[in-house]
């Protein structure tokens, strides 16, 4: 699990994280949200030691990140970066996905097996001998994810995975997250896609100006107008509808279409099924 205590970090004297404390247990799926510059990207770089705390500590499975190398921590914390083009370099998709496994010293036969497994899982098997540069944007993104999943880290962090994705691609990502959750992994997603979070995440950590301003159930956090505004986000559309219908007795914290449908049917006296 991840344990962060009073984390402070600054860039050139400019404070980016101001006393962040956070705990994430095995099997949890958490969304980290906040305005641009709130510190989200800086925060997740502490999970695998790319950044070390100036004050406070970060412990991953009990190991203090200041006492481990990035390579050691990355073995257990997989970080999927936002732009796949920042990592693709190999001659084939297979080599790309095998890269991390090679770095971590896995034997050849295990590498072969693992790569094939993850390629099949992400629908990339037919592309395994292609050059990663010849693939479409969506395919490149899946290759980047595959290259992290291949070595089966216990914690997987996605940095803005929904940017530029169409609805279908986002659905597939949600399925993947569900699958990984069923394997008892910790999933952390940094995003500002409120709709995506409302549908798929039970817990939200809201950052603003380097501090945690909320940490709790998605429903409690994302339907709170004041919090949302502080973090430069928008309420989920269903919640906006609910807030408009408060005078009809509709609760103001609805997030899903099924809920608002039920509430409206109730208002109309048509009951629910």
């Amino acid at each position, binding site marked *: 699990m991840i344990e962060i205590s009073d984390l402070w970090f600054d860039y050139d004297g400019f404070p980016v994280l101001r006393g962040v404390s956070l705990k994430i247990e095995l099997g949890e799926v958490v969304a980290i949200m906040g305005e641009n510059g709130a510190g989200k990207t800086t925060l997740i770089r502490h999970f695998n030691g790319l950044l070390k705390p100036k004050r406070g500590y970060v412990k991953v499975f009990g190991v203090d990140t200041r006492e481990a190398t990035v390579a050691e921590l990355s073995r257990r914390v997989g970080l999927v*970066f936002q732009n796949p*083009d920042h990592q*693709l370099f190999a001659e084939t998709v297979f080599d790309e996905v095998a890269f991390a496994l090679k770095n971590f010293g896995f034997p050849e036969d295990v590498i072969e097996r693992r790569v094939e497994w993850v390629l099949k899982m992400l629908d990339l098997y037919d592309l395994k001998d292609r050059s990663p540069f010849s693939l479409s944007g969506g395919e490149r993104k899946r290759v980047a994810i595959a290259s992290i999943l291949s070595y089966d880290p216990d914690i997987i962090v996605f940095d803005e995975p929904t940017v530029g994705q169409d609805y279908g691609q986002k659905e597939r990502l949600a399925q993947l997250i569900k699958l990984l959750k069923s394997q008892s992994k910790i999933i952390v997603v940094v995003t500002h896609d409120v709709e995506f979070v409302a549908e798929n995440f039970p817990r939200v950590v809201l950052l603003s100006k380097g501090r945690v301003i909320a940490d709790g159930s998605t429903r409690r956090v994302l339907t709170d107008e004041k919090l949302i505004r502080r973090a430069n986000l928008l309420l989920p559309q269903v919640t906006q509808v609910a807030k408009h219908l408060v005078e009809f007795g509709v609760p103001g914290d609805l997030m899903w279409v099924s809920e608002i449908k039920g509430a409206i049917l109730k208002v109309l006296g048509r009951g629910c099924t």
Partner: protein
Amino acid sequence: MNILKGFEFKHGESIIHKLDPRAKLLFSIVLLVISFIFFNPLILLLIFLSLLPLFYISNVLGDFLKTLRGSLFFIILVFVINFLTLDFIYALSLGLRLILIISCFSIFFLTTYPEDFAEALIKLKVPYDFALTFTMALRFVPTLAREAQLIIDAQRSRGLEIEKGSFIVRLKNYIPILVPLIVGAVRRSIKVAEAMESRAFGASPKRSSIVEFSFKKNDYLFIFLTISLLLFSLWLKYYLHLDDILNSYFHFGQFHPFL
């Protein structure tokens, strides 16, 4: 990267900042010429000291000194090599000359808007495409630096250890960093080209410019002073032979360490 601080534009409202870039360019070139005319270290030192006020009033002295400190290695290297092969006084003057060369470029770049520099080049008949390429290169340096860091982070997160291993291994480890960087740069240049085309690049053979340089009183004064300085230096050197007189006084060429 403190060594580069003295070449990075710093915003300011000083007289030097407001001078026409062409006047400043002229000054830097004249200074360069002067630093090659004179050999005597005393003269070179005096020239250098008289430059310092210019840095001070432009409020960029600190950045310039950072670059000097960063260049100390090269300056000392120049001194040592020339000391061991030629002569102490000569080595001193060459070291000072290097300092002067750095100074004359530094004062220019610290106080001139980068795009004004490109524009000054154009006004001096440098082809537009060339100046534009220079501007764009400057524009994307911070972006490339940021990307390089992102790429390094991404690859380290996949277990790449760039500090470990033999020389050959470390060289090989640069491939996962260079390839995405170069591919990204190529991709970006296509996007930039698209954007340029979409704003009618090449529409008219005669391009106009929003930037207009006009010499003001200060500029004429500065140019006058610059030309006077050049003429004065030439007079000192070739008429009064001040340089040679001082050199013989310092026993120039006679302090060879191994003779």
